[in-house]
């Protein structure tokens, strides 16, 4: 007996597995199954690392990344840093089906999503806002900065590389001296 079909996913996200399996065994394609499974986690937030309301960035915003790949055609659709759209895997599927591109990012990906009929909405929740506020209160620790001023291991930003503070002054003086004024 062949063990196929097969659904495999990272972490104990059982509902996602169930959804993908149901789609696959009811006549859906492999892409339908991946999309259904990932969409469940986007809705349920799974362990907080999928979908809206999780992982606020330094500005408190939640942005989403997703990809979907068809192993038969080697077609791919992906979104990175998708803003204010909840169903990232759905948008990725639209990139795959309706463009010849592979990856769309940021605000432009949001515009594309809106053109495909997705709703533009806030991805923050009281929980993600609390996470962000607590992080600010902890002097923005931890963070992903290094070799900057102020010391990122102790303080919040904004940060600059040490050399630019000196460079900025020199450049400004030269410009003033050599290029006149308005």
């Amino acid at each position: 007996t062949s063990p196929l079909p097969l659904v495999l996913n990272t972490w104990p996200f059982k509902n996602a597995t169930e959804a993908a399996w149901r789609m696959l065994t009811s006549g859906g394609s492999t892409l339908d199954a991946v999309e259904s499974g990932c969409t469940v986690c986007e809705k349920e937030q799974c362990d907080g690392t999928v979908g809206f309301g999780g992982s606020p960035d330094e500005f408190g915003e939640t942005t989403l990344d997703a990809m979907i790949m068809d192993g038969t055609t080697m077609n791919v659709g992906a979104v990175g840093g998708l803003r204010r759209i909840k169903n990232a895997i759905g948008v990725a599927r639209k990139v795959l089906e309706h463009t010849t591109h592979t990856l769309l990012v940021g605000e432009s990906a949001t515009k594309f999503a809106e053109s495909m009929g997705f709703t533009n909405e806030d991805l923050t929740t009281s929980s993600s806002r609390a996470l962000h506020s607590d992080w600010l209160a902890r002097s923005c620790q931890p963070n992903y900065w290094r070799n900057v001023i102020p010391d990122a291991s102790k303080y919040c930003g904004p940060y600059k590389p040490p050399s630019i503070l000196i460079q900025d002054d020199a450049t400004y003086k030269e410009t003033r001296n050599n290029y006149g004024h308005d």
Partner: protein
Amino acid sequence: TIGMVVIHKTGRTAAGTSTNGLKYKIHGRVGDSPIPGAGAYADDSAGAAAATGDGDILMRFLPSYQAVEYMRNGEDPNIACQKVISRIQKYFPDFFGAVICANVTGSYGASCNKLPTFTQFTFMVYNSLKSQPTEEKVDCI
């Protein structure tokens, strides 16, 4: 992050990921998840794989692509996943990461990098030999 791999009874494959990334990340940071070959990869002629963990490190090694290539060369999915983890370990022994692998016959496996706080990786499996989605664990290496 959720990474998912699907193989149809006809042998067709697909893979995908979805994530909201790292907490407190720098605005604009994108990790491995939406990068084909990094977050996930699928190829009907070999298999499919998906990765999860510290995307800043993972994406440099294209783990999903690498795992599929190992399976293309005949490696068992467990071994393919382990080899991918080993490749990254050489440069970043303390990286956080795990990979799931499946080949076109429906064999599957997983592996992860052992850390003091991460010694086992849990993943889900559902195939025709099971009556419900099943949680499986693999010891990290």
